[in-house]
């Protein structure tokens, strides 16, 4: 059904391309000939403060047969290689954060919704507290206070801690209405254990909610990771990341717009692709617009 929608197919194709880039990064970089940390002094002009050389077969921003998407001003690092490795970082962080938030959100949502009472009260209070928190500012504050190495794990944890309540809230509400239904009552009457009821009877009915929320969460986390890296509290140089590339392009962008345009386009398109896909998935599984 989704496959008949040209927009959705285009989005899926773009996402597949980026995932492929992320997975095969070392291979691709070997083909393109430059690794993301390698400096190429011959591609930049030392007399003009290190802006990429143009002319002589080189295009805008130093784009040439050798450097497919140009080079970084100042250092001459290959932008294509950094985009490929940056995709790896973005996707890994966004997917890991999505996985962790989904697990947390589903488990706590089910617990609160199914057991109710005191369990529900405690979980709901914690969720309210986390949602009242200025998440972005607090993430920045925490990350800035922590040491810079192994930032990727911290990023995942911090993003997930503030992300799960939004899914858990929905799961909780749906579980509360599902547990009143006849099939749950029938399962209980036939002697199913509580774990069986929750995981075998209720969880499968939440599939479409989870699917939609996951597709909508990934672009959010890609944006968050890039935003935090942009502000200098995410991935730190020399690790390539799209957000951090955009951040370092700020001081060059009036002279070398290509350096800003390349990662900016990749990032905006990736988020857009996930958003469109999420929208279509939602329309397919939830025509009434309840989610």
């Amino acid at each position, binding site marked *: 059904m989704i496959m008949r929608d040209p927009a959705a197919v285009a989005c899926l194709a773009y996402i597949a391309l980026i995932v492929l880039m992320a997975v095969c990064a070392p291979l691709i970089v070997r083909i393109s000939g430059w690794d993301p940390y390698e400096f190429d002094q011959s591609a930049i002009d030392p007399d003009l403060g290190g802006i990429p050389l143009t002319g002589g077969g080189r295009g805008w921003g130093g784009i040439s047969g050798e450097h497919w998407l140009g080079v970084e001003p100042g250092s001459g690092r290959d932008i294509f290689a950094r985009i490929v490795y940056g995709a790896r970082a973005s996707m890994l962080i966004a997917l890991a954060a999505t996985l962790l938030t989904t697990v947390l959100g589903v488990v706590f949502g089910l617990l609160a919704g199914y057991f109710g009472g005191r369990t529900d009260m405690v979980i709901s209070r914690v969720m309210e507290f986390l949602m009242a928190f*200025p998440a972005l500012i607090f993430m920045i504050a925490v990350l800035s206070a922590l040491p810079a190495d192994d930032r990727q794990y911290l990023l995942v944890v911090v993003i997930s801690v503030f992300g799960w309540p939004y899914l858990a809230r929905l799961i909780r509400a749906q579980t509360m209405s599902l547990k009143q239904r006849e099939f749950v009552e029938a399962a209980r009457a036939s002697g199913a254990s509580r774990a069986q009821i929750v995981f075998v009877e209720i969880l499968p009915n939440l599939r479409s909610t989870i699917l939609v929320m996951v597709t909508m969460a990934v672009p959010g986390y890609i944006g968050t990771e890039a935003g935090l890296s942009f502000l200098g509290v995410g991935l730190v140089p020399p690790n390539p990341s799209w957000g951090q590339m955009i951040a370092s392009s700020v001081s060059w962008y009036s002279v070398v717009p290509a350096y800003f345009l390349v990662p900016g386009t990749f990032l905006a398109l990736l988020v857009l692709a996930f958003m469109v896909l999420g929208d279509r998935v939602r329309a397919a599984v939830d025509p009434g617009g309840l989610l």
Partner: protein
Amino acid sequence: MTRYVVHRVGGMILVLFLVCLFTYMVFFLLSPDPAVQICGKNCTPERIDQIRENLGLDQPFLTQFLGFLGGLFTGREYGGGTSIIECPAPCLGYSFQTSQIVTDMLVQRLPVTAVVAIGAAVLWLTAGVIGGLVSAVREGRFADRFIAALTLGGMSIPNYVLALGLQYVFVVQLQWLPFPQAVPFADDPGQWFANFILPWTVLAIGYASSYTRLTRANVIDTLGENFVRTAKAKGLQPSLVWRRHALRPALTPVVTIAGMDFAGLLGGALITETVFGINGVGKLAADSITKNDQPVIMAVTLLAAFFVVVGNMVVDLLYSAIDPRVRAGAS
């Protein structure tokens, strides 16, 4: 109603206290020793101890936290011996890197951020409501689909990418707008206004997109309601049906969410202000992160939490005044 208000205010104070405690704890546990930072080069262990004592950093966690809380309500003093710094209530700390009281730094910059936030809110509410109405009226036709495509784009583009893109096009290339620089409103209103056009747009565009969708969905829902059909059936003019019956129920949720989003705007202002070099609270936070000026970072976090929590409460109370079902559900 009184009971409900008391209940909500109590909850709000608890959440604010927890945010304070949590933030303070994180900084206490995670951050590098501020005394070492303040001391800088040519530091001796004795001097570090001296600074620790002056700042009260040698005290146990609870004492320090209570000192901070006390400063919020009654003010406090920093330093010892001859150099005592008076920090009147509400004291949010003292920034040793800039030698300023944090509260003063925030108060100086808040008006600028308020201008950014209010301008953006006006823009996104106008655009969102008009866009949503147009989409709802032309449901399924070209205008609706065009607006839907625009909103998807608006929701996906990261705001700093948009900010840099717009600045490149309108300031560097076309030169329609001046390069942003601080101009007081009284000196040159035109230039002042021109400075804020791009920040307002950037901050507003994501919200405008989601408000368009929300308004559209609500209006379409309301138009399907029985009371609207009745109004139409009894021969009311279409414009009156819209004004008296359809718009109010459709827009109430939009305004409610606007209150909460407005309160949470400090996070978005951080990026926008940094990119455009606007000297507001957001830029202050970003600069303090670069300099690792912890009292300021913490104060901004608390201020942001304060806005979010108070904003949510005000919205809840207003909503419960309009819709009695909310009160019944809460108690």
